[in-house]
């Protein structure tokens, strides 16, 4: 069995490319700072300003890069690349201020730095499990990148740090400079700062709002990254805001140092959030493996859904099995079902030999850890097979029951119709004949034809006899009083006309469905006939409503029961989902009231 959306094996380059990049970035970030030197008097980066700031700068940068690398190994994808990128962009500022670095490196670092916010916005808005994939998210991401590109390229071409009156990281050495334009460079700087402030507000608000609307399993994996990411964006915005108010940045000044510490702390938190998400993925995978083991060892049919739900922490998960014969889905109990994904849900089909055997409806956030599907597919094979077989059996049983019940109901309806037809047809006509015979008789008497009168009287008598026979026949086909007045009066009449003493000791006054009442009536009719056959001298009858069952109990003093003679009653009762049993002199039927 394979999952329909299995992950193909990735080439080594793809698998190790991002971690290799991350290691390079990390090495670069380490090289960007002076680890040995004492804090500088006029530092050209925050890392160089004091040891605490150095530690914070490195923790944030390396943390992001390493978290991205780990995330890639566990769950390759865009977020991991973005995390590594954000770590690099963060460290770029250190390269800009690294006086001993070649000008080319410092110029490239100057271009990388403006992308930090765009990378963070992208990471947070594209973090899986949320509903931030809407058009406004795309717009925000696009805008952030466009502004970052504009600022990076524009400043590379137009900004000569020498003419920047607030320059402090470097005041020269832009190798890409085409034409120094002080005003344009200032405008681009202002654009960067304003855009960071203005973009941050809706993005942070949107992230926090999106958390309110996601499903419970998704929220657990989402909250850590999204909240810390939003904090990092807010910290970057506050940094930009501070620069708008106080253009001259001095890393040793308390306010600037504090904001830097805040930014570093937020990024470190984000790194921790990413690492935690990676850890969670690993944990989920382990629990699925454990589940697989569990299923291989003791697959208890009917419990797969619950075991699955517990393992992956998704209480809305559903498993549906496809039955080729009836062409429909059923659940583990064989009840027809329609596996459709609800809000925040996806459907994974389990396929074997090109044919679908089951589908799992699960939370969309689980689909992002897409090895779940593959591993479940391979591991739960036995459990799925077992449960599917059982579900199919149960479905067929239910189907058979329903068809039996329909047959019985149709037979009942036919008898009821026959009785009605006799009543409305033959009986009425014969009554009309009787009435005409009677009128003719009165006429014959008036006109003094005694022979004719005698003949007519005889004919009238025969018509009356025929009517009596017809009435008995109709009653035997179906007792109308059963439908009209229920089991009580019907059984009472049955007892009065029975060929042996029948004591109806109790009959429930409650009514049940027509099929249940007919079956109960038939049990008593045939129970009495059986008692007569076994030379009983009496029959006692109880009919009670117990829970949702109509319970009919007959007791007599006849000889041993011959089970074969009651088979048709057993079938009849079973067709309604009931049970017929005999115990000594007692015949008992339990019929769902319906």
């Amino acid at each position, binding site marked *: 069995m394979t999952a329909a959306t299995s992950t193909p094996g990735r080439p080594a380059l793809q698998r190790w490319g991002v971690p290799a990049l991350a290691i390079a970035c990390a090495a670069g970030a380490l090289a960007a700072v002076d680890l040995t030197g004492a804090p500088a008097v006029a530092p050209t980066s925050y890392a160089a300003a004091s040891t605490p700031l150095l530690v914070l700068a490195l923790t944030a940068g390396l943390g992001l890069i390493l978290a991205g690398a780990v995330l890639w190994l566990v769950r390759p994808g865009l977020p991991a690349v973005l995390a590594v990128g954000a770590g690099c962009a963060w460290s770029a500022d250190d390269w800009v201020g690294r006086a001993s670095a070649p000008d080319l490196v410092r110029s490239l670092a100057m271009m990388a730095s403006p992308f930090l916010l765009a990378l963070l916005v992208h990471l947070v808005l594209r973090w899986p499990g949320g509903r931030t994939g809407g058009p406004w998210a795309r717009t925000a991401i696009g805008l952030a990148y466009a502004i970052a590109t504009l600022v990076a390229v524009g400043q590379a071409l137009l900004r000569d740090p020498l003419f920047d009156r607030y320059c402090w990281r470097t005041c020269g050495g832009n190798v890409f400079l085409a034409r120094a334009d002080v005003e344009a460079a200032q405008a681009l700087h202002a654009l960067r700062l304003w855009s960071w402030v203005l973009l941050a507000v809706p993005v942070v608000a949107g992230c926090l709002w999106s958390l309110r609307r996601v499903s419970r399993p998704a929220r657990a994996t989402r909250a850590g990254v999204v909240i810390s990411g939003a904090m990092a964006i807010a910290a970057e915005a506050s940094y930009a805001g501070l620069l708008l108010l106080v253009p001259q940045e001095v890393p040793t000044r308390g306010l600037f140092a504090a904001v830097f510490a805040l930014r570093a702390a937020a990024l470190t938190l984000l790194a921790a959030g990413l690492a935690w998400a990676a850890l969670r993925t690993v944990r989920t995978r382990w629990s699925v493996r454990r589940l697989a083991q569990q299923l291989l060892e003791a697959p208890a049919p009917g419990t797969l859904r619950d075991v699955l739900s517990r393992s992956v922490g998704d209480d809305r998960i559903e498993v549906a099995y496809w039955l080729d014969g009836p062409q429909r889905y059923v659940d583990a109990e064989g009840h027809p079902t329609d596996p459709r994904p609800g809000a925040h849900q996806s459907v994974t089909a389990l396929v074997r030999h090109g044919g679908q055997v089951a589908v799992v409806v699960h939370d969309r956030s689980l689909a992002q850890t897409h090895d779940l599907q593959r591993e479940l597919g391979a591991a739960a094979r036995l459990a799925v097979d077992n449960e599917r077989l059982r579900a199919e059996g149960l479905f067929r049983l239910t189907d058979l029951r329903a068809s039996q019940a329909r047959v019985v109901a149709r037979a009942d309806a036919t008898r009821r119709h026959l009785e009605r037809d006799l009543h409305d047809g033959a009986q009425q006509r014969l*009554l009309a004949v009787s009435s005409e015979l009677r009128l003719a008789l009165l006429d014959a008497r008036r006109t003094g034809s005694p022979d004719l009168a005698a003949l007519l009287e005889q004919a009238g008598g025969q018509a009356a006899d025929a009517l009596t026979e017809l009435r008995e026949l109709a009653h035997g086909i179906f007792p109308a009083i059963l439908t009209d007045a229920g089991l009580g009066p019907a059984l009472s*009449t049955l007892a009065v006309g029975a060929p042996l003493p029948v004591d109806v000791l109790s009959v429930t006054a409650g009514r049940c469905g027509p099929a249940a009442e007919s079956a109960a009536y038939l049990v008593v009719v045939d129970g009495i006939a059986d008692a007569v056959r076994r030379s009983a001298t009496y029959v006692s009858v109880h009919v009670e409503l117990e829970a949702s069952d109509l319970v009919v109990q007959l007791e007599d003093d006849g000889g041993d029961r011959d089970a074969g003679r009651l088979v048709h009653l057993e079938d009849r009762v079973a067709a309604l989902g009931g049970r017929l049993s005999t115990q000594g002199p007692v015949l008992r039927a339990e019929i769902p009231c319906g």
Partner: protein
Amino acid sequence: MRVVVADDAVLIREGITSLLRSSGADVVAQVGDADQLLHEVRRHVPDVAVVDIKMPPTHTDEGLVAAQRIREELPEVGVLVLSQYLEPAYAMRLVSDHPEKVGYLLKERIFSGEVLLDALRRVDEGETVVDPTIVSMLFGRRRRLDPLAVLSGRERETLALVAEGLSNKAIAARLVVAERTVEAHVTQVFAKLRLPESPDAHRRVLAVLTFLRG
């Protein structure tokens, strides 16, 4: 005697009407369902209404329901219910609701002899009428300990006539004995069967039917 006839089968309705008219009864209206029946009964206030037990719309117990309403609204109007069902339950329901001036007769018997006219007359005079077929069916019931075994032949005859709704006077006429003899028989029978002897001649019908059916 003024009569309203209600039966949804036209042939039967016409038959009953012709029969009644040829015997001198005045059929003031014939109807096909319970609503019309109530309407005509209120309009004509007949002596007796002859009512089919099953009528539109549901063909179940419209006749019994109509009988009950007529007896409640117009106590002077008797009701004779005609039925094709040999069901003591229906007869007992009719008698237990309003024991006076009601009757339950099997349809198959109304065109033989003077059954219909007799029943109408009895209902009109205030008696209760229970079809003898029902009574004999109840008498024929098999029992483990037959409580009727303690009765003499005459007493059983008397009991059956009580169950059919006859008054002591009518029983006396039927058995060709003095009314006082019948009274003595009835007292004796009720004592033997441990039935509370009701002073109300109508209530005793239900008591006897209930006893026989139980």
